[in-house]
């Protein structure tokens, strides 16, 4: 009898240790991958921002220059121009959100053929980005179908790709068009998660449709809004392929984003400056996301 009582806790402890070991074993590959391919480069890149590294010699040989690289980048008006250009493209996020909520609500009515519509809206999302870019370049040509369409209304040909203001517009339009499908599906899922009882209660209280939407539905979609905005900003700040292939970062650098600016430095062997740009971008995204998480946390507590 004595032996039994003594054995039990030991067995549990051994079992716990065993559990822990297996747990760690299961996540080991992921851990190794993250450590080697993400964390190590992360710190490597941080170190490179404090040196003047041109990539032609090993990082260890490059001279350490303190904050000089930061000074160079942050005092370059072209850097801030790229920053501004990148922020401008974020306008697409709210535009996309408004359009997708509207469409999701229509799809949520459960009418016939909803399934087909869902697929149709998602097709641009899965299409290859390079194919889409080539397509839009051809379409936005001054002799292209979009201008033809506008001509039907007597509108003069717009130089979508050659004029700075219109170029930004075209870029944002293309991004919204491509991303609509994902947001629609997310909102659809969110809408279906809203229990009808809330809407019923509001109706009984005498609210009309708009009030129901604004005071019940919209707020209850909070998590979805949150997800879309956070991922939208993280992705939007890193915009590269679209402005580069569609417009070459132009015209007159109107669509030169931070990443385009980064690659320019990289190609000129100013690797450290490129790393600084990446870090500034990363810190900015981190702060914005942290703020969002915080406000979201506060809101959920209320």
């Amino acid at each position, binding site marked *: 009898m004595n032996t039994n009582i003594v054995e039990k806790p030991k067995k549990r402890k051994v079992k716990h240790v065993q559990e822990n070991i297996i747990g760690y074993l299961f996540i080991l590959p992921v851990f190794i991958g993250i450590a080697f391919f993400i964390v190590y480069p992360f710190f490597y890149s941080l170190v*490179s921002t404090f040196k003047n590294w041109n990539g032609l010699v090993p990082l260890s040989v490059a001279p350490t220059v303190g904050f000089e690289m930061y000074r160079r980048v942050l005092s370059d008006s072209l850097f801030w121009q790229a920053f501004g250009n990148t922020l401008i493209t974020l306008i697409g996020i709210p535009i996309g959100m408004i359009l997708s909520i509207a469409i999701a609500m229509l799809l949520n009515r459960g009418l016939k053929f909803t399934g087909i519509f869902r*697929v149709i809206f998602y*097709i641009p999302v899965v299409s*290859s980005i390079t*194919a889409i*870019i*080539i397509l839009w370049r051809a379409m936005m040509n001054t002799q292209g179908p979009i201008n033809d369409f506008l001509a039907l209304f007597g509108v003069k040909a717009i130089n979508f790709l050659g004029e700075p203001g219109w170029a930004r517009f075209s870029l944002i339009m293309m991004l919204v068009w491509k991303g609509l499908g994902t947001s629609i599906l997310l909102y659809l899922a969110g809408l279906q998660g809203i229990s009808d009882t809330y809407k019923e209660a509001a109706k009984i209280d005498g609210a009309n449709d708009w009030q129901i939407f604004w005071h019940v539905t919209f707020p209850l979609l909070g*998590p979805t809004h949150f997800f879309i905005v956070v991922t939208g900003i993280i992705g939007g700040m890193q915009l590269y392929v679209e402005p580069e292939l569609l417009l070459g970062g132009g015209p007159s650098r109107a669509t030169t984003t931070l*990443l385009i600016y980064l690659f320019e430095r990289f190609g000129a062997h100013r690797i450290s400056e490129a790393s600084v740009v990446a870090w500034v971008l*990363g810190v900015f995204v981190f702060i914005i996301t942290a703020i969002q998480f915080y406000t979201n946390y506060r809101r959920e507590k209320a």
Partner: protein
Amino acid sequence: MKKSNIKANRSIKRAKLFSDISTYVILVLGSVLMLAPLIWMLSASLKVNQFSVYGPLFHEWNFSNYIEVFKTIPVWKGLLNSVIVAVPSIIVGTFVSGLAAYAFAKIKFKFCNIIFILMLAVMMIPFPVIMIPQYYIFSDLDWIGTLLPLIIPKLFGNIMMIFFLRQFLTHIPDALVESAKIDGANHFQIFWIIILPLLKPALAAQTVLWFIGIWNDYLAPNFFSAASPTLPVVIGGLVSDFPIQEPVHLNMAASIISMIPVLAIFAIFQKQIINSFVLSGMKE
């Protein structure tokens, strides 16, 4: 009494009909906006030269454009490379991610919550920050220009997928795992025999989404492996190959060719993909 009821019913019906029709109108309009560019692309890909591309829709049916594309750019090579990257990455990466998700969800090992949150934080690191050092790491390993930089990191799992799978697994009762343990199964057996089949719906959607993401990726393949181009890189090359007098008709044909594999897979799995958005429980 009855009369007013009937009247009320009729006006409610009319109101519903009106809103139904307007819903359809808007949805159809929206669909047209979504599809119109793609339809134009199809029409343009069949034109005889880059000048008639801007002519009326579907006036010419020059299918030889597609053959021409295969002759001009290395489509087969791109296709093959894309497959070589996608298949091993998904097969191994999904398995690894599944194991990890199971560990986080069911094996309550020490610090598992903290580690999970740290992992999510890592996911937020923008690619540009690590891209440049990754290049030099790959270069030391002699992997630049090959497809290895695209494949190997993915074999170690996909954080986003781990996140979604873990969420899915939390909906599966712990009792299932407990009873299996009592029956003497170790965790690996539990994972392989019990959990994996249960994960099927979530896995289907996640793997297809991951596949589409890998397939359409341009940045990493262009940066690390330009010498072994994947399909988007091959297509992207068309943009700079003919800066003046672009052969738009051929470009359109090439784009369509590159989109077909993904659209096919999407068409087959679209139910699973779209349902997964609901399953993942965005309502949290």
